[in-house]
């Protein structure tokens, strides 16, 4: 189980980096700060899909899910645990990728405001992980789950992408206001962590 985790991390990390390299060439080497913000989030979102696909599948294979259900612990805690796991994973991938992006693309703006950047990364990643985790559970038993997960995830992520990119672009280059986006993302995060948590109980009961 642990070896697979390391493999998974490596795959996600390499994928994110490769996506950014491709972006670099796709934009002919010229990525203004606002575009960089966008490229980063796209890369992280796509990489997260790799990680999310695995979180419920492995359990099904090993019958772990059934075992967990017999435990007296709150069933929604299963969702929460998986959500946190996915979140930490994603944040880790982001944390490792960013210094490399700074170096390879000479993007000093990434390191200028590390705290703010960390903040928006957490805000955005929480959204991706919370929705991604519940969708991972929803698609776990379907035949085309690996294709279905991104198909369901991406439309739901659109407000998050809009907001996260606006805020990240602002961090790189302050322009205009981002208050409304901050509020949007916070509300989004609260809603989409709580709602699956509440609904999960209804699903897993027999």
């Amino acid at each position, binding site marked *: 189980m642990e070896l697979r985790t390391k493999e998974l991390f490596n795959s996600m990390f390499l994928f994110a980096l490769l996506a950014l390299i491709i972006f670099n060439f796709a934009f002919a080497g010229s990525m203004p700060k606002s575009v960089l913000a966008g490229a980063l989030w796209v890369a992280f979102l796509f990489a997260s899909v790799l990680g999310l696909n695995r979180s419920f599948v492995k359990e099904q294979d090993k019958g772990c899910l059934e075992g967990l259900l017999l435990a007296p612990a709150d069933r929604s805690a299963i969702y929460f645990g998986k959500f946190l796991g996915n979140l930490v994973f994603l944040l880790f991938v982001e944390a490792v990728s960013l210094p490399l992006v700074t170096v390879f693309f000479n993007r000093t703006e990434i390191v200028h405001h590390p705290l703010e950047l960390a903040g928006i990364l957490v805000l955005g990643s929480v959204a991706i992980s919370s929705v991604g985790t519940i969708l991972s*559970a*929803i698609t776990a038993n379907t035949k085309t789950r690996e294709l279905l997960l991104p198909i*369901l995830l991406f*439309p739901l992520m*659109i407000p998050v992408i809009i907001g996260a990119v606006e805020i990240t672009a602002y961090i790189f280059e302050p322009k205009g206001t981002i208050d409304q986006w901050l509020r949007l993302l916070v509300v989004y995060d609260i*809603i989409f962590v709580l709602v699956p948590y509440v609904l999960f109980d209804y699903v897993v009961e027999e």
Partner: protein
Amino acid sequence: MKVDWSKVLSVATLVMMLVSLYLIFIYAPIEKTMGVVQKIFYVHVSTAWTGFLAFFIVFVSSIIFLRNGSRLADIVAYASAEIGVLFTTLTLITGPMWARSFWGKWWDWSEPRLVTALILWFLYSGYLILHRSAGEDIRRARFNAVYGIIAFIDVPIVFLSVRWYRASHPPLLVFEPGGLDASMKVAFFVTLFTFTLLYFWLLNLGTRAGKVQDELRTLKEGL
């Protein structure tokens, strides 16, 4: 005397449709600046409204299904989602036609209503695909309902995001249809009502189809 509400609904829908068509094409005047094309407006907004109503019903049915496992709720949710995707498709086809005629542009990413309709289309197409690959498993049906709930909650958020996005990306189109003439208003609201009736009529049909499908399945399992 027992009233067959299905039949009443069918007749009412048909009658109202004819009334609407009369109001749209004969009663309401041709708009001065925009010409005949403006009449697309009546049907474009009506299909958009119907799509939205359909997805709201998916949301409500999904909640009911999760709370008390009502098989009917699940059937209604699916039927409604199908209708919703249908009408949203029509909205997405009539929308650009209208936009193109007026402003020379097919699409505008800053227009919240149009973009929300597009996202709606994806969200509920996803719902239909999920339903298909889920099969008859109760747990899968429940997960499906969870998705139906989450998807609907996302809708106002998407709408707001695009609205705010528009603030930093000046719009190409300004979709305010200006003041509507009184007779146009009549045609407009009557058409909205008609499409609502149409929705319920189609929902009734779809629900019956779903029930019959269920019946077949139970029969087959009994063998």
